[in-house]
């Protein structure tokens, strides 16, 4: 079976529009969370959100390439340009090789709502315009990026709720490991607009700590009161070790293991058993021992039951090893469909630069998080293996283990 390595990364998020900006934000513990006041005008319970500028895509792509690109597609495009550049993959390579794309995305609400508004008002579907359908489909990111970059390998979208980005990397890992594909664009993207989170807001799932936006996302803290929605785009270039060596690409890391499970339980309430099995499968797949895992990027979104049950699962599986545990969502909010991919990028940046970013707003632990090794200050630490959890509605769970590539 082929070894699967990472040769490129790209990130466009509320804590930075490229790797260097994000690295700085991670190191200094900078929050990307703010308020979108318009949400209050529309009766939203919470105006809290990750704050990020839309890229000036008109300067980069012609009309035909832009017209089908949704908001999250634009974020994914920016991240993928950065990732290809780092991987040393250019147009000529893409023309001559079957590079594919597997990207996590699980909604495209804004263009759907705009289209429906026009149809209701005008009673003429043509006035929706030609781009709407290509922006509205769940596969909007993969269909657009595969055309823009002229990709010739596999292309489909992975919709696994808030584990979408993580599962996309896991599926890519399987395809490359089995030899079906040599090189893939994997990642996750999430739209950041009020339409995309209206019904989620209605579940009272979001923090309402609006007077202190930077303190609103507080995973594992006893006084957490809900998540903060966020988003952007994150891309990884996965390829076989042989392909990377043949191209002379710099190998940034290796996908060592992937685990998954479903809770078989409740639509929105997570349990302990599902995440536990996902963790155990990933560790078994990697062939590593629990003491090899030095850092865990937790799924922990800042909800009471979700964080509690993840802490229990981590303690059950890795309690004896006691690795550092943080949730970068304390800085970014919950990047949902994107989170499983962005959190690999964040953790990779930490591993490459020998630090663990501070876990913000962890002021008072609960009975389980008190047993986790959660640093509230930046830790200078060289480490070579980390694990990242991503869980989603419907009880879908994904766990990835990444390590520095040892020859």
């Amino acid at each position: 079976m082929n070894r699967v390595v990472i040769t490129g990364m790209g990130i466009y998020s509320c804590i930075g529009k490229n790797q260097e900006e994000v690295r700085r934000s991670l190191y200094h513990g900078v929050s990307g969370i703010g308020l979108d006041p318009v949400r209050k005008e529309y009766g939203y319970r919470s105006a809290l959100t990750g704050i990020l500028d839309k890229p000036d895509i008109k300067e980069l792509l012609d009309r035909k390439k832009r017209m089908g690109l949704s908001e999250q597609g634009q974020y994914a495009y920016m991240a993928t340009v950065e990732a290809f550049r780092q991987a040393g993959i250019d147009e000529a390579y893409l023309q001559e090789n079957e590079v594919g794309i597997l990207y996590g995305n699980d909604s495209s609400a804004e263009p759907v709502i705009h289209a429906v508004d026009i149809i209701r008002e005008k009673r003429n579907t043509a006035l929706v315009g030609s781009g709407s359908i290509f922006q509205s489909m769940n596969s909007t990111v993969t269909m657009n990026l595969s055309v823009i970059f002229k990709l010739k390998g596999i292309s489909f979208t992975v919709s696994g709720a808030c584990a979408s980005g993580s599962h996309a990397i896991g599926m890519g890992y399987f395809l490359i490991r089995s030899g079906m594909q040599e090189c893939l664009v994997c990642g996750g993207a999430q739209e950041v607009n009020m339409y995309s989170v209206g019904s989620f807001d209605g579940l009272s799932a979001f923090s309402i700590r609006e007077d202190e936006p930077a303190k609103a996302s507080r995973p594992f803290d006893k006084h957490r009161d809900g998540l903060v929605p966020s988003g952007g785009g994150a891309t990884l270039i996965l390829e076989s070790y042989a392909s990377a060596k043949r191209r002379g690409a710099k190998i940034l890391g290796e996908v060592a293991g992937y685990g998954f499970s479903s809770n078989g339980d409740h639509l929105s309430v997570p349990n302990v058993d599902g995440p536990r099995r996902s963790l155990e499968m990933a560790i078994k797949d990697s062939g590593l021992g629990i003491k090899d895992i030095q850092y865990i990027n937790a799924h922990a979104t800042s909800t009471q039951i979700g964080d509690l049950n993840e802490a229990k699962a981590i303690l059950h599986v890795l309690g004896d090893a006691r690795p550092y545990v943080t949730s970068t969502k304390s800085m970014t909010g919950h990047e949902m469909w994107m989170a499983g991919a962005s959190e690999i990028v964040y953790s990779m940046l930490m591993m490459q630069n020998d630090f663990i970013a501070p876990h913000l707003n962890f002021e008072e632990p609960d009975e389980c998080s008190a047993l986790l090794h959660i640093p509230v200050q930046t830790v200078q630490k060289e480490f070579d293996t980390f694990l990242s959890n991503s869980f989603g509605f419907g009880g879908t769970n994904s766990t990835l283990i990444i390590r520095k590539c040892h020859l």
Partner: protein
Amino acid sequence: MANTELIEKINQKLAEEFETDIERIRPDAPLMQTLELDSLDLVDMVVLVEQHFGLTLKAQDFATIKTFQDFYDFIDSHVNESNEQK
């Protein structure tokens, strides 16, 4: 025959929407090739005509249009027709 003001407005809107140098738009130039239009773009042409000229058309209405002059005449005749109905 469409008036100069209408022609200038049409040229400006087409150049903006389809990101073409306005200097390339000449009455006898082929519309589809000059603007590099495909079937999807004709849908956006319907939107453009509705937004800027208040006309409700279908993509197939453009089937007989070969040149920009044909387009000017087409818009002009429908604008006049629309005004008469009002």
